Every structure is written in C-alpha cells, then in structure tokens.
C-alpha cells in the first residue's frame, strides 16, 4: 500500500506518467499495427462467414474493454469512497468517456457484422441489449459528472452510482437473458458453435493486448488532462477570489468594456 500511495500522489503521478505515457503509446501503436495486419490480411477467412469474420477482431476486444473499463471505474469508485483518494476520482472520471467510446465501437462493429450475417442492423439479442444498457449507463454517468460544478462533490456522488451500477449490471444481464429466451429463443447465432482455430485465436489475442495498451495510454493521458484541468480551475478560482486590493479591477474592466476575468 505504501508504494501505491506514493505513486498515487498527483504530482508524482504527473512525473512518472509523463515518462511512461510515450512508452505505452508506442507499444500500443506497434501491437495494434501487428494485430490489424495479422487479423485483416494474414488470418484465414472463415469457412462459413468468409471475410466478414474479420470484424470480430475489432469487435471482441472492444466488447471486452467496454466491460473492463467499468471494472476499472468500480475499483476507482471504491478508492474514492473508502480511501478518499483524489486520484481515484480522476481515474474514474477519465475512464468514463473511454469506456463509452469502446462500448459504442462494440455496438457499431456488432451491427456492421449483423447486417450481412443476420440481415438486420440490430437484433434484440440478449447480449446486444445488455451492452446497449451499459452504454446508456456510461452516458448517464458522464451527464451526472457534468451536472456538478464542484468536481470533488460530483466525483463522490458519481462513485455511488458507479457502485450501484456495478451491483445492478449482472441483474440486468440476467433479466435481459430471461426476456430474450421468452420472446425469441431460436433466432440467435450462437458464438459457442465451433471452437476458435489457433490461426484466428492468435491475432485476436494480439488485438486484445493492443486494445488494452491503447486503453492504458488513453487513460493515462486523460488522467493527466483532468489533473491539469482541475489545477487550472483552482487557479482561476483563486484569482477570482482575490481580496479587496484588486477590487478596483472590475470597475476598471467595466470602464474599458472588457469582462473582469480577462483583465489579468
């Protein structure tokens, strides 16, 4: 815990992450490049689905990260509520848009794959539906954060919602499975048909590694941006709250017609 807490000091975080970020970014780019080339050009087409199967290499890692990102946020929410750690807020808040983006990517590539395979852009399949609910929850969380003008208060309240969602998502998943089996049992293509061949498994694993590295790089960069954004906000508030010696400024500014805060 001592190591973790010393690494998690915001200033120290900024210094070590500035050294780590370029390395992770380059690794992510390389892994993704290898993975994309392998899965789109080298891996064999599926005997049933043909080249459409290649969408899977983009789709499966995105779906995995959509869930992984929520787990990261739930861990960060615990950090906010239990240890009151400022960096935990930053981590959760920075992860939300990334998670939403991966969830959207999973939904989008899923429907692009569904059009030739199922003949429809969207099927109310249990899995699709629960990912859609997850997407809505990401957007709701982002909206909740944006509704608070004080970021630390917003972070604590959002942490509650993250944990409520974390308990609720399995329940939603279970109920959607139930709902779907009641209404349209046989129309779904099952993923667990033939087991996946090594010639496809390896590029898929490389893609998953590449996506995960991309997530780490994006998350680090977003956390750094969020820390700087908060520092900028604090500085602005300090300037705005400066006491009487500068109280003449607004009148000066009013005389010149400029808004007060641009006078500095």
């Amino acid at each position, binding site marked *: 815990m001592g190591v973790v807490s010393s690494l998690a000091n915001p200033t120290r975080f900024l210094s070590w992450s500035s050294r780590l970020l370029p390395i992770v970014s380059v690794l992510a780019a390389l892994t993704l490049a290898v993975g994309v080339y392998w899965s789109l050009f080298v891996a064999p087409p599926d005997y049933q689905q043909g080249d459409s199967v290649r969408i899977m290499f983009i789709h499966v890692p995105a779906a995995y990260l959509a869930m992984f990102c929520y787990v990261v946020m739930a861990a960060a929410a615990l950090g906010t509520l239990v240890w009151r750690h400022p960096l935990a807020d930053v981590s959760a808040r920075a992860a939300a848009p990334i998670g939403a983006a991966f969830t959207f990517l999973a939904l989008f590539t899923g429907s692009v794959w569904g059009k030739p395979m199922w003949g429809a852009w969207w099927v109310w399949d249990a899995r699709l539906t629960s990912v859609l609910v997850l997407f809505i929850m990401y957007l709701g969380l982002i909206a909740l954060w944006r509704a608070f003008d004080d970021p630390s208060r917003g972070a604590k309240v959002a942490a509650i919602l993250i944990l409520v969602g974390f308990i609720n998502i399995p329940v939603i998943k*279970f109920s959607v499975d139930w709902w779907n089996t009641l209404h349209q049992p046989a129309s779904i293509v099952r993923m667990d048909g033939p087991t996946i061949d090594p010639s496809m498994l390896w590029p898929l694993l490389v893609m998953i590694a590449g996506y995960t590295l991309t997530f780490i790089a994006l998350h680090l960069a977003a956390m750094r941006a969020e820390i700087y954004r908060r520092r900028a906000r604090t500085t602005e508030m300090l300037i705005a709250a400066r006491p009487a010696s500068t109280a003449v400024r607004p009148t000066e500014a009013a005389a010149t017609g400029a808004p007060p805060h641009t006078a500095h």
Partner: protein
Amino acid sequence: MSAFAALIVQTVAASIRAGGGALTGLLFFLTVVSVIPFGVGPDLNLLARIGPAVLWIGVLLSMLLGLDRLFGQDREDGGLELVIVSGESMPLFVLARACGYWLAHGLPIVLAAPVLGLILNLSPLALGAVTLTLLAGSPALAMIGAVGGALTAGLARGGMLAAILVLPLSVPVLIFGVAAVNGAIADPDPFLAPFLIMCAFTLFSAVLAPIAGAAALRLGLD
C-alpha cells in the same frame, strides 16, 4: 408517532397538497396511456396484446415525475443537515421518504391502471395480473427512484437527469413484471417464476437503495 411514520406522513402530505405533484403524475399516466392508441391504431386485438406493457411503461414513466422534489426540498431548506445532525439513521430516512413517495406517487397510479386497462381491451384476468404485478413491483421503482433523487438532489434540472439514471436500472423490474403478466394470460409461459423474481428484486432494492441513497445524500452535501 415514531419519526419513521411521521416522515412517511409528511412526504405523502407534501406530495398531495397543491403543487405537490402526485396528481400531476396520475394525470400524466392517464395521458400517456390514452395517447398510445393514437400512435398504434385502434385495433383492439393489438391493444389487448400490448396493453400490459403499455400500462407498465406508463407507471414507470409517471413515477419519475416527482423525483426532483423527493430530496430537493430537504437540500434547499436545510432539512437534510438537521437529519444528519440529529443522529437518526440516514438509510431509514431515505426508506421513509421512498415509502411516502410510493404511497403518493405510486399507489394511486397502480390503482388507476386496471381502469385504464379497460380502454385497452384487457381481459379480466389480465387486469388482475397487471394490478398484482404493479402492486408488487412499483415499490422497487420507488426505491430505485429514491437513489436517483438522492444522486441529483440540489442540482439544476436534477429531475431530468434522475430520469436518465433511473430508467436503465429499472429494466429488470419492467422485464419481469411484463413477463409475469404475459405468463398469466398466455398458457405455456410461467407466471410464478418471473413474479417471484420481481418480488425478490423489490426486496433487494428495498435493502440496498436506502443505503446507496443515504450515502449519495451525505456525500453530495459538503
């Protein structure tokens, strides 16, 4: 009268007096249900088939309307600080508010549902099943709603945001409620299993929602 009962009575009284919003919720339910046939057409067979789902969605939406006032008032007039300082249990406070909310904003709508079911051409069996499932399921909607209300207490336009946060969490109640009604009407589908799962969800939310709501209220204060 215990503090718990007094809080419930006070919540109900605040909701049903002029400007309280309970009547508005009931009228909204009436309006939503009567607007549906204009959209889907006057086919009585179709209405009988989708009727239970229409009533359930109507209740779900109508119960969102008062959420911004559930804790908003306490935030504004300092009542929330008093509750915290008094040392009374915060989860019980949230539970009392949620119970009062259900009595004022949930129960009247649920009792109106079978009447509106008549204009949707529901059979007597379906009317009974809808009322029963709504009676058992709407408390869960009030509990989840209370979490949404607590999360957004004191925010400008908090009610809209609460609606967005609450709806995805209410999906399980809706699924099992409508599945139970369909199970009662159509023969091969089971009634008891989805009904019991929905009851379980109601109990589950009655335990967890007050804890989450209390934490949200406390953390949202400073």
